[in-house]
């Protein structure tokens, strides 16, 4: 993480939702990364989707009505 980018993470209730969301984003070629949920955020599911803040709206719209997610949180670069 050399460049200072602002990231958001999308949290899910279960791993399968996270994987489903990932498949959709992959198909749509939207940049994202599946990462373990940052330590300071608690979540039942241990993985989440991370993406640059600038893609948040596009990603939210793409997944709308397709995958249920819990919430989107902004994370600090140091939290990665």
């Amino acid at each position, binding site marked *: 993480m050399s460049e200072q980018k602002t990231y958001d993470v999308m949290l899910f209730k279960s791993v399968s939702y996270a994987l489903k969301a990932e498949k959709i984003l992959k198909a749509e070629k939207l940049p994202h*990364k599946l990462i373990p949920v940052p330590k300071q955020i608690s979540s039942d599911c*241990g993985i989440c989707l991370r993406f640059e803040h600038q893609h948040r709206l596009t990603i939210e719209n793409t997944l709308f009505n397709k995958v249920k997610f819990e919430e989107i949180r902004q994370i600090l670069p140091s939290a990665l």
Partner: protein
Amino acid sequence: MMRYEVSNMSEIKIVNATGLACPQPVVLARQAVETNEKVKVIVDNDAALENVQRLGAKLGCEVASETKAGGSIFEITLTRKAGAPFPTQDVPVSCEASAPAAGPFVIVCAEDKMGRGNDELGSVLMRAFLHTISQQKEKPDVMIFYNMGVKLTLQEAETLEDLKELAAAGVEILVCGTCLNYFEVKDKLGVGVVSNMYDIAGIMSKAGRLLTP
């Protein structure tokens, strides 16, 4: 207060504990503190430094440490506080405290999945593992990839970004050449150097710690 310090300046007991194995520095320091108001202990490793500092605190001393010779020598000055009771119980000594492991810290990825049972889950776990390793402070010295593990190092791999970050941080990444050849993906290698069994077996043999996800 000042007078007390000055009058004792000439009575510093020097304990040279360099070159001594744990727990000798602590034993000597304790003996010295029992009979002297002020003791300077000289040690040459982190474990001894931590142990002597802990001893000093436990014995109710003022503890001051100095690093000498570019970080290879530590001088710890223990000053008994006036009237401080001298504890009789033993001070635990940890001989491995932060002593560096004898050989390199090696991570071996023999598969592109973490754990067995479900491939989809295993793949997610492996990605999460490598991401976490790339972000944590204590990074491995060497990472070795063989058999299906080589797939993690290819250009199209989702783990490439994390492995590149590790490589940039100085982690040596060795990828089994036989395996790249077998899968016919040598031209798709995205990170690390093509290695052979001599290097792989050699590094694994002298590893201080070897971790397989």
